């Protein structure tokens, strides 16, 4: 579904991403992890064509450099980390914008539009908030509204840039569970930048670890999440620290 070949991204003299290659197929959730400044978000933005890059990105076998913006949006949905809506649109209007790529310049005809928006709202648990002003939503509700917009786009591939890193536990779980539910339909795939390694390991099927713009490990989740790789990427004994963090205090049901 998504094939990335030798992608590099440079900001003037600084190479933020160096020669990254990987592939994402249907049913997979690829977690992109690494310390701050590893180039994860930069790589995601390059794949989404927000940043210029060297190398090749193929989507459904087609070179994305040749795909028009609308064609890209019909095949790939992108959810950014922060959102700042400027005006009091309703949640439904915001989600409806996800159908933009399916409408022609002059005609607004979109036979599937209504159904797709309703389904996206329901999947994100926003049916009851459809008439609510987006400026009055909490951070978690707003992120869910934008996630619903991405679902309404009707793509088979999702790119998520730290989708829940600024949200509280309940919303983190809601966002990740919703994406996992969405992924149950065959032929869909997700690639996301995630800081929380526990979330990445629990929800991901595959992982790509990055450090200083380079790929350190890529493959099926369990082959990447090894003590050796974790230590190599984060320069610390991540495994020991996680064991210390997760000592079985919750197993004591008395409290």
């Amino acid at each position, binding site marked *: 579904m998504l094939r990335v070949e030798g992608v590099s991204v440079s900001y003037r003299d600084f190479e933020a991403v160096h020669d990254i290659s990987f592939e994402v197929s249907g049913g997979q959730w690829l977690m992109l992890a690494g310390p701050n400044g590893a180039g994860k978000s930069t790589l995601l933005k390059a794949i*989404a*064509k*927000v940043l210029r890059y060297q190398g090749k990105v193929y989507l459904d076998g087609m070179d994305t450099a040749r795909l*028009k*913006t*609308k064609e*890209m*949006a*019909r095949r790939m*949905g*992108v*959810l*950014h980390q922060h*959102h*700042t*809506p*400027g*005006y*009091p*649109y309703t949640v439904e*209007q*915001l989600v409806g*914008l*996800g159908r*933009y*790529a399916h*409408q022609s*310049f*002059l005609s*607004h005809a979109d036979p599937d539009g209504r159904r797709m928006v309703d389904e996206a709202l329901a999947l994100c648990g926003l049916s009851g908030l459809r008439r609510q002003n987006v*400026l009055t939503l909490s951070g978690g509700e707003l992120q869910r509204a*934008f996630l619903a*917009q*991405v679902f309404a*786009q009707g793509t088979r591939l999702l790119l998520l840039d730290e989708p829940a890193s600024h949200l509280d536990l309940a919303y983190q779980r809601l966002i990740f569970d919703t994406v996992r539910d969405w992924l149950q339909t065959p032929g869909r795939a997700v690639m996301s930048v995630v800081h929380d390694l526990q979330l990445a390991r629990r929800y991901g099927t595959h992982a790509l670890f990055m450090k200083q713009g380079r790929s350190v490990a890529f493959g099926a989740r369990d082959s990447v999440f090894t003590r050796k790789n974790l230590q190599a990427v984060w320069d610390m004994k991540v495994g020991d620290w996680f064991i210390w963090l997760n000592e079985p205090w919750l197993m004591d049901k008395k409290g």
Partner: protein
Amino acid sequence: MWRGAGLLALVMLTGLVCVALGSVPIPLDKTASILWDGVLGRDLTGNTQAVIILTVRLPRVISVFLVGAALSLCGAAMQGLLRNPLADGATLGVSSGASLGAMLAILMGIQLPMLPLAGTAVLSVIFAFLSLLLVLFLAFALDRSLATNTIILIGVILTMFMGSLMSLLISFSGPRLRSLTFWTLGSLSGAGYAEALFLLLALAVCGLVLLAHARELDAFAMGEENARAIGVSVRRVKLTVMAAVSVLIGVCVSIGGSIGFVGLVIPHISRLIMGPAHKRLLITSLLLGGVFLMLCDLAARTLLSPVELPLGVVTSLIGAVFFMFILANTRRRAA
């Protein structure tokens, strides 16, 4: 539907009142009858009131309506594009740029053969577009996120800079001083049918371009990154909208001088009435902008009659207060 019909009725009624009132008031029924006779092409020779209405007031009121409609439409489009409720030709320095272009055209005597209005308009449009590009370029260079406050601050700085250049030109203009001063104050007292037709053409073309981009403006209002993600060709839309806005502001300034704040005040009121979706917002802003400027023009020519106030002064007095109101509101919301 009903709101749309109500707005159209408001436009017609305001237009009728503005044509009827002036230094020589004419009853509304008489005004309507003369206008109707004029539309049917009946002979009105010797009718003094008909002369006043058809040759003096009507072309002026039509021009005022079109300028108000165009400026307000531009404000609504820019506010959507930049996701910035304070964006307007005046606050972004675009009107000042257009005025400077018009001044230079007059001083250098630039004219196009057969098109007496076009020379000033062309330079106005070019300067309006360059000003807009300069504001966005400087804002981007200073603050890559193109934050609201940065854009407005640079717009204010650019307006002051252009104002200084205009003052410099005026002080060296000698006998042309009066016509140059006009650009800084704004007035449509000399507008005739030729000006109205020129404005109508510009509004028809650029207005349609802007209306055709209503959905894209909705997408920009949610953030540029998000607009790109849902499939909007960000650069093309930005350039198209900016070009249409520059042409409209340039043409308006070349005919009526610098008339500030219409594009700031009216889109806000329109948003309160029709909501933020641009399909309705742009049309409502267009109609209400025309109504607002017709009323401002009526005030300008009747409040201190026989002395006529410059139209730009009236709109700026109202706009400055409104600007403060929006700024305070934006700050409160941000807090």
